[in-house]
């Protein structure tokens, strides 16, 4: 009676799909979990566990070069994310709330940084700064990071704005609120989860970058990923594992925060 057996014909539950999904997730997590486990190794080895300790974390925190690089990275990510978020918020208000012509063109430009392969961005920015005579180093990093962070900040802000009820702003206008008051008291508070979520994503994307930073950072402005890469010349050490695990923890926390804030009240 195959004709009436709906389970056999239902392709919502296909055999093996759950297994594939589980294996895919395992494949994405296993290396990271292994690296984190070995960062707690009491011994010097990266292939044999000799008990657990925080030895390598103490080594990381005592290492001044790592500290400086981490500070550079965080400072850079905060500045770039803030600049990108301000510009992205303004752009999203124009794109979502105001009727205008040539929206498609503006949309294409806002998303352009997502389309360009990273290595192209890296060397093009290097060429640009050397052509116009601006040196490399921290200011160059801020400009480059701000630029590629814009679409990452823009997407959650525009999504939030689209899902907001324009009636509230219209009501404020009916009660004679001036545009700026309306923006400050109605639009911005409602938009804030999107803005925070966008800022956090931009922050992570900046923190994540290796290639662009490695091309643009001068002697004093090494970022943490660039420093970790230079540590690899001596091979993978437990210290590399420890500092890498700290980065994993930082990005995981920020992403989960961004997801929770973005979903709140929506």
């Amino acid at each position, binding site marked *: 009676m195959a004709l009436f057996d709906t389970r056999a014909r239902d392709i*919502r539950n296909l055999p093996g*799909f759950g297994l594939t999904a589980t294996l895919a997730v395992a494949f994405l997590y296993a290396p990271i979990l292994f690296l984190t486990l070995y960062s707690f190794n009491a011994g010097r080895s990266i292939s044999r566990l000799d008990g657990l300790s925080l030895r390598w974390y103490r080594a990381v925190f005592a290492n001044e070069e790592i500290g400086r690089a981490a500070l550079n990275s965080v400072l850079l990510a905060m500045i770039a994310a803030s600049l990108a978020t301000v510009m992205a918020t303004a752009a999203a208000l124009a794109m979502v709330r*105001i009727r205008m012509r040539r929206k498609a063109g503006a949309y294409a430009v806002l998303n352009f940084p997502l389309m360009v392969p*990273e290595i*192209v961005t890296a060397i093009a920015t290097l060429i640009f700064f050397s052509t116009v005579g601006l040196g490399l180093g921290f200011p160059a990093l801020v400009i480059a990071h701000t630029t590629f962070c814009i679409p990452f900040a823009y997407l959650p802000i525009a999504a939030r704005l689209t899902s907001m009820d324009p009636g509230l702003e219209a009501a404020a206008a009916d009660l004679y609120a001036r545009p700026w008051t309306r923006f400050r008291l109605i639009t911005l508070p409602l938009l804030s989860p999107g803005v925070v979520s966008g800022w956090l994503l931009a922050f992570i994307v900046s923190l994540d970058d290796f290639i662009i930073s490695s091309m643009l950072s001068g002697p004093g402005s090494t970022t943490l990923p660039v420093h970790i890469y230079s540590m690899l010349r001596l091979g993978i050490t437990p210290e590399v594992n420890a500092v890498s695990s700290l980065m994993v923890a930082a990005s995981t926390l920020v992403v989960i925060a961004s997801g929770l804030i973005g979903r709140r009240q929506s």
Partner: protein
Amino acid sequence: MRLPTLLLAPAIATILIFMALPIAITTLYSVLTPAQYGGVIWQPSAEAYIRLLFERDIFDDTLAFNPDYLQILWRSVLQAGIATLLCLIIGLPTAWFIATRPPGQKSLWLMLVTVPYWVNLLVRTIALLLILRDEGPVNLALQSVGLTDAPLPLAYNNFAIGLGLVSSFLPFMILPLYAAIERFDFSLLEAAYDLHANRRKAFFSVVLPILRPGLIAGGLLVFIPGIGSYLAPDILGGGKTLMLGNLIGMQFQGSRNWPFGAALSTILMAVTLVALFIVARRAAREAA
């Protein structure tokens, strides 16, 4: 200026000046003469593009065909292509499974798939090397079970690079496919069954055509960063097998031939733009 222009101007101007303009300048650099220690001499030259195909004899200046760079180009396309196919084979069932879960489980699975994407790519690549090494857990497990006597060469080869590309970009395939399956109206399947379609027929004639935009989006999101990928070949390939991204990077580090690097980067950008253009035009035609 009008208000929308004022609001849009900072973001648009930043992207145009600090990303679009630099890419245009890079294209210009590709037809200039290299200076000795990096940088360029402002003198037009097609040498960078000639070098891609030919080797110039240092004594009599004759050109001989040299397939080395073409091979690197081809290897990049092949590696990225295989990675895209693997991502599709893993990603489609995964996305399908996630999209058909009840709402609570769905967001948990989505979070599980999304979080690794935001973890630093360098760190993820190091972690993969850690488990693929000769003394890594995979090889140790295989040996202790007795499947192999000597460690399998899992790291520092094309296999490792491919695995690195798949793990780097798999979330890019899963997410657009998930979005497409999520929108899929399952009553269309009921209709197909009512018209006596079997499962295979229903999948290929009803489901697949509707998922095509998601498949194309996912494919591009894996393929494009895959060709230009830098870290996977550099760290997992052990510097033995180059891909386009590494070849470009080298021209600005050790080899110091900026016009050649600019030419390679221009080719990569052109391939990217052509792919995006074809997809955009097809999408526009399907929407019309």
